């Protein structure tokens, strides 16, 4: 029985092979070597970017009177962010150009108008002599991201106005998308100032009429945490909000100008139109 089955199988294989030969004659069995690689082209995309992209918003902001101030106030604030061809940008008090945009790195030059101490110094108990003019700062920035984590750094040098020191801001955060219409971005950051920068904002020169001389060193002077959120209201409308808490390090907090409260708060809530 076993032998017979073997014979059947052998014959089956022979017949099967013959049958396949009939089909195989239509197949190129001799083909060898590299295949021809075909290159596909992307389908025209309907989400073409406009040259001008941006957002205009209006909201209420709460902020300290100036860096290191213990007093806060509320103001109406416009939120203006405009980019041209994904290269040139204006973002509130900042402007600049993206010089390199790779998959994991965006970097370029940046400038900003840094507010000095506010003009209404009486409220802060400061004399007019302690005013610091707005400063034009120029610098560079770089940003990278990994999955939903992001890291950005900006370095500025004062070129005119109240100070000529260097200031670096580093931030890292994570993008939470709780659903397709709601985003939450927590981040942490540090601010680092050069000795000149620190002296301009927190130092007290000798001969000051009210305070003893104070010469802070350079280094980290502020750490902060921020939580921002975006709720899409409609295709072109967003509700935006953010809360930021900053804690001054000793070199800044021990300044006579940074009194009352080591922790400072900023908050913004507004409606934004996207274009």
């Amino acid at each position: 029985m076993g032998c017979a089955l073997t014979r059947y199988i052998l014959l089956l294989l022979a017949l099967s092979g013959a049958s396949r030969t009939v089909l195989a004659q239509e197949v190129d069995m001799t083909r060898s070597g590299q295949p021809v690689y075909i290159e596909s082209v992307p389908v025209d995309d309907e989400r073409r970017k406009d040259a001008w992209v941006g957002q205009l918003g209006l909201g209420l902001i709460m902020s300290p009177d100036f860096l290191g101030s213990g007093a806060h106030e509320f103001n109406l604030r416009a939120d203006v962010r405009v980019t041209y061809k994904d290269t040139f940008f204006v973002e509130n008090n900042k402007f600049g150009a993206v010089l390199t945009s790779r998959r994991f790195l965006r970097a370029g030059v940046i400038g900003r108008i840094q507010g000095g101490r506010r003009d209404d110094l009486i409220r802060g108990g400061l004399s007019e002599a302690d005013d610091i003019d707005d400063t034009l700062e120029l610098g560079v920035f770089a940003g990278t991201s990994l999955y939903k984590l992001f890291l950005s750094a900006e370095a500025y040098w004062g070129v005119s106005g109240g100070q000529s020191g260097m200031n670096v801001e580093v931030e890292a955060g994570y993008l939470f998308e709780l659903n397709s219409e709601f985003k939450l971005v927590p981040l942490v950051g540090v601010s680092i100032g050069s000795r000149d920068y620190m002296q301009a904002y927190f130092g007290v020169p000798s001969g000051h009429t009210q305070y003893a001389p104070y010469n802070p060193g350079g280094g980290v002077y502020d750490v902060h945490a921020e939580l921002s959120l975006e709720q899409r209201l409609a295709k072109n409308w967003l509700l935006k909000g953010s809360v930021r808490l900053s804690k001054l390090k000793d070199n800044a907090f021990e300044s006579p100008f940074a009194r009352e409260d080591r922790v400072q708060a900023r908050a913004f809530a507004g409606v934004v139109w996207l274009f």
Partner: protein
Amino acid sequence: MVKLTVRDILCAGGLLWIGQAQGAAFASDIPDTVDAPSATQGTAATTAASGANTPGAVLLNVLSYNIQGLPSPIKSNKTPLFERIAEILRERRAAGRQPEIVLLQEAFDADASLIAENTGYGYVLKGPGRKAQSEKGSVHWAMQTRKSYVSFNDPQKFTGSGLYILSDFPIVEAQHKAFDSDMCAGIDCLSNKAILLARVQVPGISAPVDIINSHFNSRSSAKAPSRHVLRAHQRQTDTLAWFMDKLCVNAPVIVGGDFNTRQSERYDYFRKALPLVDAAEDCLTPGRSCRLGTDTVREAVLYNTNDKQFFREAAGYSIVATHIERNFSEKLDGRELSDHLGYEVTYKIMPRASQTGTQEWAAP
């Protein structure tokens, strides 16, 4: 020496008939007329050839196979598995039974290219790579920080699409659409998932046949909230519908891949959005002379699978599925070749003009 008798030949012929009935569909086996469903339909529907053949009808074998070529260290020591897959395809080619079209998914690893290059296929279309264009959607993955100047416009991908289309026949045109950044969820966003179209000039068919390969967002392995994952999957489905509306106008279309549609909610949305015929449903429709492979069960081709094939007829051609098989089930040193099986469908593509004559395998 083996001594043959008439009885031996008859017995062996019987075995051969059974083998062919349950195995690959051969041209001479495929009937044109629809037989009544047999009692065993759904596991191995078998019919004898009957009726007249169709002039110019072409049999086209299309294999869709997710080879689980995940990058290291997620999956290591993959090359022997790829080599075995290539070897199987070479063996089938030598026997004249190779699928003329192969759709690969998850071919992320560079070594996966050996399947494309060492299996005798004359034409290879590789899907978009990591750096290929994909667009930023309204949310997700293209990092939108609160600072626009450090927000990334292009979604950042760690791997390419992992898609290949291998063909014995000339690919005369090829297009792709990488899913936008808001069309993925979770870990799937790490790869540049896409829709890949090859317009293939199949001998015997006057118009090119559109072959589409894609890999949709996974479900639980995406490690993302289920609502988010479902929405991403639906957007991918919508994009495939848009893609086909835009590109696949008059040609016969075969759509295969890992669509991750095992979940009924996903499958239902997919079917409503896309005017396609499920090859398995077509095959298992009562009255169809279509067979399943030897070890292929009904549910493994119908709904209890993420691998699927669909088709759409064209004005000048009708299409029927004549054989479906889940294959590549062997193990190599105790390891499965992939966490998916191959999903192979034989289609008969027939001109509508006349209904008599002979049928042949598409041949290069």
